């Protein structure tokens, strides 16, 4: 089918390239001691990039059995577009062979593992529900054009766990995410126990006094912010005034303790890719070095517009993280001495403005007095701005953890951050 599409495109003088995304997914949901839902899927999707009459069109489709319709759409869309642009197409790159087969999994064992977590209800009778989700995702991507066929694969395990705690008529939820290359129940159990302790503490959570505090934001929550702003380095967003870094290229934007990298070739990480969606080889790069914004990201089109090289990030960054420091999480608490730990930030899709950088986010956490946790907090708001936050860094922790294929973060100790509470 792809061959037919390429031939037809060629006959119409349309340059074309097909990015093929094949997913095979199995998901398991357990509720307490029962298998709640079993899900299985197999899908192919195609992203077709075309250059015709100096216009670029991208078509996303799940069916390429009718190449004529696709070609007609490309011609119609290029007629409608106003801008003349240019792009380049994938060529052979020096890549390792990463075409792996789907790993076999013992799903019955996984179901039994997840259900076995119910034993903790004996020790913690206030646990009302334990809801666990496991997803095994095999992904194969390929890029096909008249010159090349590139292939890459990945096998990723996702876990999401949710615990509902009920005490004196009050409900409290705790949850955790895990993403890994290998299924490892001991890590799931470790996270599960941590979450039980957290949810137990949160049932008695109160609000706090509105003030400026020293604040530790735990690794996953720092990553949520980093991830929300993952497109701010994109050259097109910057050029179009749609990034908070519009005027900041080659300028100091954050504390010199902040270095943000993209590490897409690291085989130990979950987001590793050999090439991006346009067939450019991926590579390690610093986006922000010692607080200075040093790398804008370019797909092929924008690289031509600005006379740069593509950065291997078409389709988005992979394995992006803040380079860890040397302090353990416990060291950060000692260093803070008095302040607030933020362990949950919610509502980022609305409360973190991707154009202005304003952050106003519902939070939960703990108050720390003299280096010790004194009480748990909820219904508080972290009120700051992206640049203010990352300029107020005291130190970066060493607990780097990856939370998605996009990346991860260590925990960070900040100073002078506004926390709004009811008191």
């Amino acid at each position, binding site marked *: 089918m792809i061959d037919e599409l390429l031939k037809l495109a060629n006959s119409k003088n349309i340059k074309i390239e097909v990015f093929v995304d094949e997913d095979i997914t199995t998901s398991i949901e357990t*509720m307490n001691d*029962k*298998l*709640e*839902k*079993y*899900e*299985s*899927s*197999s*899908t192919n*999707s195609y992203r077709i990039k075309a250059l015709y009459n100096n216009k670029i*069109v*991208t*078509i*996303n*489709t*799940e*069916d390429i059995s009718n190449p004529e319709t696709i070609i007609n759409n490309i011609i*119609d*869309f290029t*007629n*409608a*577009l*106003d*801008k003349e642009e240019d792009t380049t197409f994938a060529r052979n790159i020096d890549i390792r062979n990463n075409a792996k087969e789907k790993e076999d999994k013992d799903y019955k064992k996984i179901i039994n593992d997840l259900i076995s977590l119910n034993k903790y209800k004996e020790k913690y009778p206030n646990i*009302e*529900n334990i809801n666990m989700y496991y997803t095994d995702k095999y992904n194969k991507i390929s890029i096909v054009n008249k010159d090349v066929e590139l292939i890459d694969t990945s096998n990723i395990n996702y876990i999401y766990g949710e615990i*509902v705690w*009920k005490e004196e008529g009050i*409900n*409290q*939820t705790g949850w955790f995410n895990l993403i890994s290359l290998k299924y490892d129940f001991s890590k799931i159990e470790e996270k599960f126990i941590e979450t039980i302790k957290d949810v137990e503490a949160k049932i008695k959570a109160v*609000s706090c006094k*509105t003030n400026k505090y020293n604040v530790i934001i735990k690794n996953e929550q720092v990553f949520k912010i980093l991830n929300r702003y993952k497109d701010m380095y994109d050259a097109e967003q910057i050029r*179009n*005034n*749609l990034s*908070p870094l*519009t005027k900041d290229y080659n300028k100091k934007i954050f504390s010199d303790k902040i270095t943000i990298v993209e590490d897409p070739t690291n085989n130990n990480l979950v987001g590793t890719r050999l090439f991006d969606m346009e067939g450019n080889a991926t590579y390690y790069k610093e986006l922000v070095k010692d607080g200075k914004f040093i790398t804008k990201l370019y797909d092929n089109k924008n690289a031509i517009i600005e006379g740069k090289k593509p950065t291997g990030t078409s389709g988005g960054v992979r394995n992006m993280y803040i380079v860890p420091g040397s302090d353990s999480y416990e060291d950060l608490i000692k260093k803070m001495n008095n302040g607030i730990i933020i362990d949950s930030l*919610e*509502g980022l*899709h*609305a*409360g973190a403005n991707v*154009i*202005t950088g*304003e952050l*106003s*986010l*519902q939070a939960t956490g703990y108050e720390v007095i003299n280096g010790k946790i004194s009480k748990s907090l*909820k*219904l508080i*708001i*972290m*009120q700051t701005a992206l640049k203010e936050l990352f300029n107020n860094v005291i130190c970066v922790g060493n607990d780097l953890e990856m939370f998605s294929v996009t990346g991860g973060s260590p925990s960070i100790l900040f100073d002078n951050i*506004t926390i*709004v*509470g*009811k008191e």
Partner: protein
Amino acid sequence: MNKVTLESIINKILSKEVDFCETFEEESITKVYKLLNGKLDKINYNYLKGIGIRIANNNDIVYGYSNKLDNNSINNLVDNLTKNFSDNKKMSNIALNDLKVYKTKVKTTHDELSDDKKKEYLYKIDKIARSYSDKIVQVDASFYEYDGKVTIANNSLNYVEDNRVLTRLIINVVAESNDKQTNSMKTFGLSGGYELVDTIDIEKEVTLLAESAVKKLSAKPCPSGEMPVIIGPGFGAVIFHEACGHSMEATTVALGTSVLSGKLGEKVASDKVTIIDDGTLNNYWGTTNVDDEGNQPQKNILIENGILKGYLIDELNNRKMNMNITGSGRRENYKYAPTSRMNNTYLAPSTDKIEDMIKSIDYGIYATNMGGGSVDPVTGDFNFSVNEAYLIENGKVTDMVLGGSLIGNTIDILKNVEMVSDDLRFDTGFCGSKSGNVPVTIGEPTIKVSKILVGGN
């Protein structure tokens, strides 16, 4: 797939020990025309075609989907999904009823409005915004078109086809001055075609957006702390969508963990609060001809004068809850199993006057434009963002302040709705939850909340 093929799939599944089987086929095209820098910058095109199959035996549920629609792939999918059910057949084979076909009422189809006309409209938006002030540095405007056909068949003999058409306009205006950037955004949408543009006073709406973005450049920081807040009409209803709508969806109610579980008939809100979810409103953005389980949508009164009257119930949660299905089974597309979701949710209007709300506040916030939010339906803790707000001092509206967020707990906030006006207005959005992102309308008149925590500086 034709009727015979669907019957054969369903009957193959019914040869196992199952009591529910459903197929959901979808073929859809989504197109987005995006204007940037005064030019048509991109046309995003997305074509989906696939099938989702849901099977249950009592409360054991399996779901699978594929866009490989050849016989072999479908058989593999069915075999994979049924492998853990025994061969003790418990349901008779079925013959589907005649297909019932539904169609969104459309006055101007997506094809009827030419690309040139669509572009002209988007150019106009750019021109209006930029002519307001030279501080407007970007206008990002898009038309969103959805044309989809879904076919649902199940062993209750539901066999329906729904031809759905959605149209939306999204406008985002960015202002800049002295290295400070602000933006204002608004969306308009309906279940229908390009008659959408006839419902919009575009000159007025874009000018208001440009004015708001420019005014924000000199807005003061938002105050913080617990205070009375007036929430403007339309998108302000996100407070009810988040604060109580999600807590009334069977997804969490059936587990007994929603903050509103087991409270039917109880007073959960102030007398001023009547909340309705109505999937039948004519051509509203969140309206469906049938829900994604093939059931008729309906008007569901959820809270009436503060009393909890009902929940939103889908096909399989109705088994757990033994309550009537409300036509609320929804999903983003065939890749998601449906569950109970909101359609068009609104707070019924009352008779309070906005002037009286303002006069009653010594120090507070008038939030005239809201952003999105989120909620934990188990605890009822929710948040939503404020896009545009003004200070109220000594009973008068004074300075514009930069947006922050409002947070609270469902149970508290529902009781703190003190005044409700009569200016009911609706806005459109996408709601994300367990079964993906679905189009929803939210509506409310202006309300006064006696106290809520405001995040600011």
